C-alpha cells in the first residue's frame, strides 16, 4: 500500500493508460501546457508529446464529438471536460450520439470513449462551477457512469473504463483531488460493476457515492459513539446500478438514508429510494430518508455553501430521526 493523493492516482492511471496502449490519447481544455485544471495531467505533455496530449479549444460539444469520432475510428480517447457544468455544452454529442449510435446502428458500431470531469461543490466557486449532474447522466441508457471516491478507484476505474467497449463517464469530485489515501494495487483491475460496502453495520444503511462518501463515513463514526452501527454503501457505479448490494444491506439493517449532493427534487437519491421501495418495502422499519443539497444554485460564501450541502451533521441528524433517537 502506498499513500497517494487522489489527483496523483488519476495521473498514475492516465500515465499507465498512455504507456500501455498507443491508441490512447488525451484531449481536453488546458490538459497540456497548463497541466490540467486540477493538475491531473501535469507532466504528461512532456512525456507523451502533443500528438497524444491535445489541448482543445473551448468547444465542449465538438471535442467530445471528436472523441466519439476518434473512438469510432479505432482510437481510445480520454476526454477531459473541466467541470460538469461545462459538460452541459456537450450534451448533444453525449446523449444523441455517444449513447445512441450502437443501438441505432443495429450493433455495428461501438464507441470506446472515456470522458472524465470534475463535479461537486465545497470550494467556494459558486453556482456555475459547483453542481452535481452525474445523476442526470445516469438517466441515459447507452453510457456508463462511474463516481470514484477513493484513490484506488480514482486510478483503477479509469483503467477499467478503458477496457470497456462503450462510452464511460467518470465523475471525480473536485473536493477529493488533494485527499490522500492508500492505493490498493491488489484491488486491480477494479470491478466497475459493483457497489462497495465501505463500513459494515447493522442498524441503518447510509447509501452514497463520490465526495459524500467521506462525510457519510464521518457521520457513521460519530453515530458509533452513540451506539448506532451504520453500514455505509459506496455506489461507485450509477449506471448500470448495482441494486443487489443496496437491497442486501437494507434487508439486513431495515433502514436507509440516501446521501446525494445533487438537489433533492428529481435526484438520483429519488431513484435509489424508489428501488428500495420496489425491492425491499416489507423489510423497511421506516421510510427511506434522503439527505440532499438545498434547492438553490450553490452560493459563494462558505457558510451558505456549507449549509446548502449534505454534511456529517445533517447525515447524523437524519439517521437519528429515522431511528427515533
Amino acid at each position: 500500500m502506498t499513500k497517494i493523493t487522489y489527483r496523483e492516482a488519476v495521473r498514475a492511471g492516465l500515465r499507465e493508460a498512455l504507456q500501455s496502449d498507443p491508441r490512447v490519447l488525451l484531449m481536453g481544455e488546458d490538459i497540456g501546457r497548463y497541466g490540467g485544471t486540477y493538475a491531473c495531467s501535469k507532466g504528461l505533455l512532456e512525456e507523451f508529446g502533443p500528438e497524444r496530449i491535445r489541448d482543445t479549444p473551448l468547444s465542449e460539444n465538438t471535442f467530445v464529438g471528436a472523441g466519439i469520432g476518434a473512438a469510432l475510428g479505432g482510437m481510445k480517447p480520454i476526454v477531459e471536460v473541466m467541470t460538469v457544468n461545462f459538460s452541459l455544452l456537450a450534451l448533444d454529442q453525449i446523449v444523441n450520439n455517444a449513447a445512441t449510435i450502437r443501438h441505432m446502428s443495429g450493433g455495428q458500431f461501438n464507441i470506446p470513449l472515456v470522458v472524465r470531469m470534475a463535479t461537486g461543490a465545497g470550494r467556494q466557486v459558486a453556482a456555475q462551477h459547483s453542481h452535481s449532474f452525474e445523476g442526470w447522466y445516469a438517466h441515459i441508457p447507452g453510457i456508463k457512469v462511474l463516481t470514484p471516491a477513493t484513490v484506488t478507484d480514482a486510478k483503477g476505474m479509469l483503467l477499467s473504463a478503458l477496457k470497456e467497449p462503450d462510452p464511460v463517464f467518470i465523475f471525480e469530485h473536485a473536493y477529493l483531488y488533494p485527499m490522500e489515501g492508500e492505493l490498493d494495487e491488489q484491488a486491480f483491475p477494479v470491478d466497475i460493476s459493483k457497489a462497495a460496502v465501505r463500513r459494515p453495520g447493522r442498524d441503518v444503511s447510509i447509501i452514497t457515492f463520490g465526495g459524500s462518501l467521506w462525510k457519510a463515513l464521518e457521520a457513521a463514526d460519530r453515530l458509533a459513539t452513540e451506539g448506532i452501527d451504520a453500514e455505509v454503501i459506496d455506489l461507485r457505479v450509477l449506471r448500470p446500478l448495482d441494486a443487489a448490494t443496496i437491497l442486501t444491506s437494507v434487508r439486513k439493517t431495515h433502514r436507509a438514508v440516501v446521501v446525494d449532493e445533487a438537489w433533492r427534487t428529481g435526484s438520483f437519491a429519488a431513484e435509489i429510494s424508489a428501488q428500495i421501495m420496489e425491492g425491499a418495502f416489507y423489510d423497511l422499519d421506516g421510510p427511506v430518508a434522503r439527505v440532499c443539497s438545498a434547492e438553490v444554485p450553490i452560493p459563494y460564501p462558505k457558510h451558505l455553501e456549507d449549509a446548502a450541502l449534505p454534511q456529517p451533521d445533517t447525515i447524523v441528524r437524519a439517521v437519528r430521526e429515522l431511528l427515533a433517537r
Partner: protein
Amino acid sequence: MLRIRRFEEKSAELYSLGKIRGFLHLYIGEEAVAAGALPAFTAEDAVVATYREHGHALVRGTPMGPLMAELYGKANGCARGRGGSMHFFDASRRFYGGLAIVGGGLPIAVGLALAQKLSTPSPSLDEGERQGRVTACFFGDGAVAEGEFHESLNLAALWKLPVLFLCENNFYAMGTALARHQSQTDIAFKAHAYAVPSAVVDGMDVLAVGEATRQAVNSVRQGSGPYLLEYRTYRFRAHSMYDAELYRTKEEVAKWKQRDPITTFETRLRELGWLTDADLQEMEDTIAAEIEDAVAFAEAGPWEPVEDLEKDVYTRT
C-alpha cells in the same frame, strides 16, 4: 442519379401505402451531389451523412435491399431496422450514419479524421494511400447556424485534419430560407474565417461536382488540412412527408426543376452522342428490377424479435 431518383420515388409510393412510416426526407433534385462527390472517395475513407442520406448510402455501395428493408424497419435492414430512413449505417463501407441532429455529424467527422491521421494504417494500402485517408462529412445549409459547424471547422483547421466539409446547400433549413437564418449567406466564404480553403460548386451539375470534389480530396490527401465545398443545389420535394411547403412558391420550385440534374445531364450526353433511347431504357429496366428485388427483400424480411429490444444498448449485456 437515376437509381437514387427511382429508389426514392418508390419510397414515397410505399410511404403513401403505409409500408414506411416516420420521417422520410427525400433527396430528389439533389442527386448530382452524392453521385458526383462520393466516387472521389476510396473504400478506406470514412463517410458521415445526415438524415437525408438515401442517395449517399446508395452511391457508397450499400445494396438497395438492406436500405429498403431499413425503411420498412425490418431486421434485415442496414441497421437492423432500428434507425429507419434517417439512420442508415454500414460499418463494412465505413458509412457512419445517417445522423439526424443538424450539425451533429461534424464533430464526429473531425474525430474520425483525427483517428485516420493518428492510427496505424492498414498494411493493405500502398505508401501513397497510407498518407491519405480522409473523411467526407455531408451537412446542409441549416447546420451552418449551429455552433458545431464553427467549432468543427476551427478544430479541423487547427489540427490540420483530413476532413472534407461537404455542404449541401439547398437553400432551406427545413422551411426557413437561408437568407432568413444567416446574416452571411455565402457559406463557402465563412470557411475563410477558420483558414479553411473552400469553393462553391454548381450542385445541379454532376460533372462539376465530380471535378471540384476530386480536386478538394486530392488537396486534403496531401495533408494540407480540411477543405469545404458548398454545393448549391435544390430539393424538389417537401422537407418531409408532413410538409405542406407553405414557405416557398411553386414558381420557384418550377424554375429549379428546369435545372434537374438528371434531365440536363441526359440532354448533354445525347448531344454528345453518348446516350441513346435504348441505353436509357436499359438503365431504367435494370433499376426497376433492382427496386423490385429490394422491395421483395424488405417485404420478406423478419421483424426483430421483441426479446432483442434491449440488445446493443451496451456491447456486453
